[in-house]
C-alpha cells in the first residue's frame, strides 16, 4: 500500500469499484490479448450484473478493452467508440460460481480469431484481482509490473526464470503457479517491485519450455 492507493487513483466516476476497477479489468484483458480486439463477450456477476448501468460498469469495461485508462474522459462514450472501431460487444448479466460480487469475465477475440479469457474482480477502491486467465488460476493485482508466463510443466523451468530475474536484480514481490495437470501447460504469474529492463521479457520467452511470456505494465 502506498499514498497513491489512498489519494488516488485519478479516475472517471462514479465508483472506484464499479467504474475504475472495471476499466482496469478490461485493460488487463486487452493487454493479454496483445492486440486490438474484434469481438468481446462480457459476463457480469453479482453487483456488477445488477447495477452496471447506473455505474457505467459496461462503459468502463469496454473502455478498458479499447485500451483506455481509468482516468480517460472518453470512457463516457466508449460504447459508441467501440462501434466506430469495429469492436463487437456482447454483454451478459449472469452469474459465476464462487466469485466475488464485483466480478467480470471478459473473453476477447482478435481479427485472426485468437482468443483470451480473463476473469477478474474489483475488490474496492479501484483495486482489482485477476483470478483466471483462460480458465487457469492466477493472481494479478495490476499494481506492479507483472509477467504472465505460459509454459510446459517441466523441471527447472521456474528456476531458469527466477535465476534470470535474480541476475537482473529484479525483486519478486508475488509469485504464483498454476497448472492444468502434471506435465501439461502451466502459468506463472510474477509481480515485481520497480521495473523490468527492456528485452528481459523477450529473453524469458526464449528460455526452454516457455510457450509465451507477456509483460503487463501496471494498469
Amino acid at each position, binding site marked *: 500500500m502506498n499514498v497513491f492507493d489512498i489519494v488516488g487513483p485519478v479516475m472517471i466516476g462514479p465508483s472506484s469499484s464499479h467504474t475504475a476497477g472495471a476499466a482496469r479489468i478490461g485493460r488487463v484483458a486487452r493487454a493479454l490479448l496483445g492486440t486490438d480486439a474484434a469481438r468481446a463477450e462480457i459476463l457480469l456477476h453479482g453487483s456488477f450484473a445488477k447495477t452496471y448501468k447506473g455505474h457505467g460498469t459496461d462503459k468502463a469495461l469496454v473502455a478498458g478493452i479499447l485500451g483506455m485508462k481509468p482516468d480517460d474522459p472518453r470512457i*463516457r462514450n466508449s460504447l459508441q467508440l467501440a462501434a466506430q472501431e469495429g469492436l463487437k460487444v456482447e454483454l451478459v448479466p449472469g452469474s459465476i460460481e464462487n466469485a466475488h460480487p464485483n466480478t467480470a469475465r471478459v473473453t476477447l477475440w482478435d481479427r485472426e480469431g485468437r482468443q483470451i479469457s480473463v476473469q477478474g474482480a474489483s475488490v474496492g477502491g479501484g483495486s482489482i484481482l485477476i483470478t483466471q486467465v483462460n480458465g487457469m488460476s492466477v493472481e494479478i493485482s495490476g499494481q506492479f509490473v507483472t509477467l504472465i508466463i505460459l509454459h510446459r510443466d517441466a523441471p527447472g523451468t521456474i528456476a531458469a526464470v527466477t535465476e534470470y530475474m535474480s541476475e537482473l536484480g529484479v525483486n519478486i514481490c508475488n509469485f504464483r503457479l498454476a497448472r492444468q495437470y502434471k506435465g501439461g501447460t502451466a502459468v506463472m504469474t510474477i509481480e515485481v517491485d520497480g521495473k523490468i529492463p527492456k528485452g528481459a521479457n523477450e529473453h524469458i520467452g526464449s528460455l526452454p519450455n516457455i510457450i509465451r511470456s507477456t509483460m503487463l505494465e501496471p494498469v
Partner: protein
Amino acid sequence: MELRYETLESLVRAAEETNRKISDLVLEQQALQLETSPEEVYQEMLRSYQVMEQAAEEGIKPGLRSTSGLTGGDAYRMEQALQRGDTICGPMFTGAITRALAVSELNASMGRIVAAPTAGSCGILPGALLTFQKEKEASEQDCVMSLFTASAVGMVIAKNACLAGAQGGCQAECGSASAMAAAALVELAGGSPKMIAHGVAIALKNILGLVCDPVAGLVEIPCIKRNAAGVANALCAAEMALAGVHSAIPADEVILAMKRIGDAMSPALKETAEGGLAATPTGKRLYQQVFGRGPSSLG
C-alpha cells in the same frame, strides 16, 4: 525510524522525535518504498491536486446532471448563494461545502476525479484543501504536502479498519475522508503532530456509526451531501484540535472502534442498497425510475 503506518501514535512520535512535519517524513519514506525520488512522488501528488482543482471548477458549472439523472446542480446553487453573500457561515465554511458538492456531483456525472480515499468520498479533501488555499492564501506546495499527511492517516485506517462502504459503512468512506481532511487542515494551519492526531480522533468519532445506504446503489443519494457534511465535520474537528481541544479517546482506539462498529453493522446497511434511505418508499421509487424495475433483485 522507519514509518510503517500501523498506528497514528507512531507517526506522531516519529514527527516529534525528528522535529519534522508528518508530511515530510511520509514523502521521504514513500520515495524509498516506490523506488523513486521524493521530487517524482511530489509531482505525482501535485497532479492529483490539480485534478481536484479542475474537478471543483467543472462540477460548479450550471446544468450538470448525473448519469442516472437523479442528481446535479447543487454546487451551482451553493455557489450562487456564496456570490450573493447570502450564507450563514461565509466563504471558508460554505466554500468548502460548495467544492465538496461540486467534486461529488462531477463524479456522479462520470467526470474525472481523484478517489480520496474512494470515489464516493472524493469531494471531502478537495473541499477542505482548495478552499483553505484560496481563503487562507496558503501555497499550493503546502496544500499538496498536506495530502501526504492525509494519505498517512488513510493508510493507518486501512491497516486497522477499512475504507470501503461495503465493508465498514459510510463511516469508513466519508468518515475516513473527513479524518484525513482534518489532519491535512491541522497541519496546514500550523498545528502540532499531536493536534493532528486529536483532529483525526474528533473527526472520526463524530461520524462513527454512519451507514452506507445509497439509493439504487448509486454513488449519489445521500453520498453527495455526505461529502458536504464530511468536510464540515473536518473543519469542525480541525478547529477544535487547533484550539487545543483533546479527544479523550486516542485516534488509534477510535479507528479500532470504527472497525468493530462496521463489523457489527447489518449487511443491509453496507452498500447493498437494501436498508436505510435506499429502502424508503422514495428510495425504491427512484430505483425504479433509473433501472425500470423493482429493487428486489438488487444484490
